[in-house]
C-alpha cells in the first residue's frame, strides 16, 4: 500500500536522521579525545576546552535549525562547529593553527568561525557574545527575515552584566533569539550555587519577559523537543527564549584542569558519567531497533577514521605565511571570504 510505503520511507528517513545524531555525538566525542591527545603532544597550543559529556546539547539544538540560521558560542565550541557541518579537518586544522583551519589558523580552539555556515564564533570573553547574538537577532528582524539567532553559553555567564543587558533588549524588542544556557554546574572551579543567587537559572527569564524552559541536557530527545518549541517561537512573529539545559562536563574545564580535585569529587563525576548522552541515545536507538551493536561499532570505526584523517590533514597542512601576520587587521587587506554573509 502506498501509504505504508510512504510511512516506511518516512520511518527510514527518521531512522537515518536519528542515527545521524548518534554519529554527530560520536564525532564530537572522538574529536575531543583526539584533540586532548594532540594537546598533550604539543600539537595544539593555548587553551583547549573539551565538550565531552555535553554532546546532546549541541546536537539536539542544532538539529532544529535551518542552514540560514546563525550560531554564536563560547570557547567550548568544537562540538557546535562540527555539528553545524564544519568539516573535522578544518576544525582540527584550526586547533593546530594551520592555514587550512576554519579561521585560517588565526583563531585557534576558542575562535572557530565559518561564515558560510552561519557559524559566527567562538568567543573568549565570558558573556561577551550574548549581546552579539542579540545584535544578530536585531539584524534578522531589521531585514524582516525568519531566521533565528542561537547563542550558546555556560551557566556562569548568567551572572555577567552582558547577559542581563542583552536579554533585556531581546525582551523589549522581541528578537528572534534563543539563548541556550548550558548549565554544566561549574564555571571553572566555581559551583553554580556559589556564584548565582538563584539556583533556577531559567527563572531569570522572568526579568526579561521571556519564555523559558529547563531541559535535561543528557537526553537528546528532551533537547530536541525544547529547542523545537523555542524555534517555533523565534520564527516570525519573533519571541526570544531562554533555555536552561542541564548537563555536565565529564572532563576538566580546560586541558590544564584535572577532571576532579579541588572543586568536585571523583564520586560526583562518576555519578554523572553514568548519564552519558551518547549511551542514553544509543540505547534508545537499540531499543527501537534502529541500530544494533555491530552497526554501532561500524559507525564508531568510521568516525574514528574520519577523525584520524582530520588529524593527519591538520598535521600536514602548512602554517600561514609569515606575511599573514599583518593581514585582516583592516578590510581590503587580504580578505579570504566575502566578508559578512547576509
Amino acid at each position, binding site marked *: 500500500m502506498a501509504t505504508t510505503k510512504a510511512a516506511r520511507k518516512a520511518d527510514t528517513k527518521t531512522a537515518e536522521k536519528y542515527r545521524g545524531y548518534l554519529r554527530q555525538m560520536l564525532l564530537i566525542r572522538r574529536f575531543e579525545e583526539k584533540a586532548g591527545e594532540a594537546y598533550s603532544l604539543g600539537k595544539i597550543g593555548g587553551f583547549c576546552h573539551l565538550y565531552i559529556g555535553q554532546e546532546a546539547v549541541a546536537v539536539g539544538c542544532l538539529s532544529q535549525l535551518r542552514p540560514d540560521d*546563525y550560531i*554564536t558560542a563560547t570557547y567550548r565550541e568544537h562540538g557546535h562547529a562540527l555539528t553545524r557541518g564544519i568539516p573535522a579537518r578544518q576544525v582540527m586544522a584550526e586547533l593546530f593553527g594551520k592555514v587550512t*583551519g*576554519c*579561521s*585560517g*589558523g*588565526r*583563531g585557534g580552539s576558542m*575562535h572557530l*568561525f*565559518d*561564515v558560510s555556515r552561519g557559524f*559566527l*564564533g*567562538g*568567543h*573568549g*570573553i565570558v558573556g*561577551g*557574545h*550574548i*549581546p*552579539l*547574538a*542579540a*545584535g*544578530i*537577532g*536585531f*539584524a*534578522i528582524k*531589521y531585514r524582516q527575515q525568519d531566521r533565528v*539567532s542561537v547563542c550558546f553559553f555556560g551557566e556562569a555567564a548568567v551572572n555577567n*552584566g*552582558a547577559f*542581563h*543587558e*542583552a536579554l*533585556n*533588549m531581546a525582551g*523589549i524588542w522581541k528578537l528572534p533569539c534563543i539563548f541556550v544556557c548550558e548549565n554544566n554546574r561549574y564555571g571553572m572551579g566555581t559551583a553554580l550555587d556559589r556564584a548565582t543567587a538563584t539556583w533556577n537559572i531559567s527563572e531569570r527569564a522572568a526579568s526579561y519577559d521571556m519564555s523559558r524552559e529547563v531541559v535535561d541536557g543528557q537526553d537528546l530527545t528532551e533537547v530536541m523537543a525544547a529547542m523545537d518549541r523555542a524555534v517555533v517561537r523565534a520564527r516570525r512573529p519573533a519571541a526570544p527564549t531562554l533555555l536552561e539545559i542541564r548537563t555536565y562536563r565529564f572532563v576538566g574545564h580546560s586541558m590544564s584542569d584535572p577532571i576532579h580535585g579541588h572543586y568536585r569529587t571523583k564520586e560526583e563525576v562518576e555519578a554523572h558519567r553514568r548519564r552519558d548522552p551518547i549511551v542514553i541515545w544509543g540505547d534508545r536507538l537499540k531499543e527501537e531497533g534502529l541500530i544494533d551493536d555491530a552497526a554501532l561499532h561500524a559507525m564508531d570505526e568510521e568516525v574514528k577514521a574520519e577523525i584520524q584523517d582530520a588529524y593527519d590533514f591538520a598535521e600536514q597542512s602548512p602554517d600561514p605565511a609569515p606575511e599573514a601576520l599583518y*593581514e*585582516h*587587521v*583592516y*578590510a*581590503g*587587506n*587580504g*580578505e*579570504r*571570504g566575502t*566578508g*559578512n*554573509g*547576509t
Partner: protein
Amino acid sequence: MSTSTRGTGNGERGTGRETLSVTVPRSLFPVLPSRHRATMTVLTYRDALNQALREEMVRDPDVFLMGEEVGVYQGAYKVSRGLLEEFGPNRVVDTPITELGFAGVGIGAAMVGLRPIIEFMTWNFALLAVDQIVNSAAKMRYMSGGQVGMPIVFRGPAGAALQLAAQHSQSFEAMYAHIPGLKVVMPATPADAKGLLKSAIRDDDPVVFMEGEMLYNVKGEVPEGEYLIPIGSAEVKRAGDQVTLVCYSKTVAQSLKAADLLEAEGVAAEVLDLRTIRPLDLETILASVRKTHRAVVAEEGWPFAGAGAQVVDEIQREVFDELDAPVLRVTGADVPMPYNRHLEKAAKVSPEKIVAAAKRVLYVA
C-alpha cells in the same frame, strides 16, 4: 558634482586598509574649506553631522542609528534631530542605558552585514563598552581569518564641556588609538565632521568617531551633498614655516588662535589638524616638520601616553636630524577634572599655553 572625486579611496567598501599605506597626493586636500567649488552652506558642526547621518541613511538602507535618546528625545545633543521622524523606529533605535549591551548589539548586527552607527551619549559612558569595542569589534576580522567584517561606527561627544566634573569630562582617544583593528577620527570643523562621518559610515572597519561636545555649535561652510574626506588624512589648516602646531578636535581652534597670537609677534606657525588619530597621516606631519624644524603637539587629554606622545615618538624617530628643538606637548592637566570653573579652566589647554610652548621650541622664551 565637483567634489565627488575628492577624497574617495578609503570611504569605499573593502579598501579600508589602504589608508595605511596609500599615499594621497597633497593636492587633493584643500588647505581651506572655502576653496571647495561645491555649493556651500553654513552649518553648525551638529547639523553637519546630522546631514551626514541623513545622507548616509538615505543612501544605504543597511545603515541604522542606535543609542540612548537618539530617537524620541531627538538626541541628547540633538545630533539626530528629525531622524526618527524620517526613518522610523527600526532605523533610529532608542536603547536602555546599557552601553556594553548595545555596543555588542551593534557589533552583532555588523557581523551579518548591517552598518550600525552606535551613539554613546558621551564617550565617558563608553568605558562600560570597552570590552565590546576592544575584544569584539577590533578583533573580529582578524580572529575569524578575515571572514567577518566589522563595518560599524561608534560615535558621540568626547572631552570636557563646562563644569561637568571628573566623570563627565574625559578624552579617551589614546585608549582607542592604542588598539589595532580600530580607526579613530576626531573632526574639528563642520565640513570635516560631515566628510569624515560619511567616510566612517562607509568604512568596513570599526571607527571610533569622537565629536567635540563644545564644537556642536561651531559654524562653518559645509559642501552640500556627496562630500567625503578620507580617513587617515591630516590637513594643514593654516600654513606657516617657523613652527608646526599639531592639533585635533578642540585644540584646532585653539591652535589657530595661538597662530594669530604668534603672528602678532612675528612668528609664522603652521597649524596641522590631524583629523584622524589612527591611522596617523605621518607623511603630512613629517612634511610640515621638515619645513619648520619645530613642533608643538596640543591635545585635550591627559599627558601620559596620550595620542600626542605617539606623534612625538614618530617625529623624533623619523626626522630627528631636522629638529631644532625637542617637540613639546600641551595637554590637559594630569588630574581628574575639577568642577570649580577656575580650576577647570586652569586644567584645560588654551591658546596661551600653546603660544608659550611654541616660544619655548623657538627659544624665544
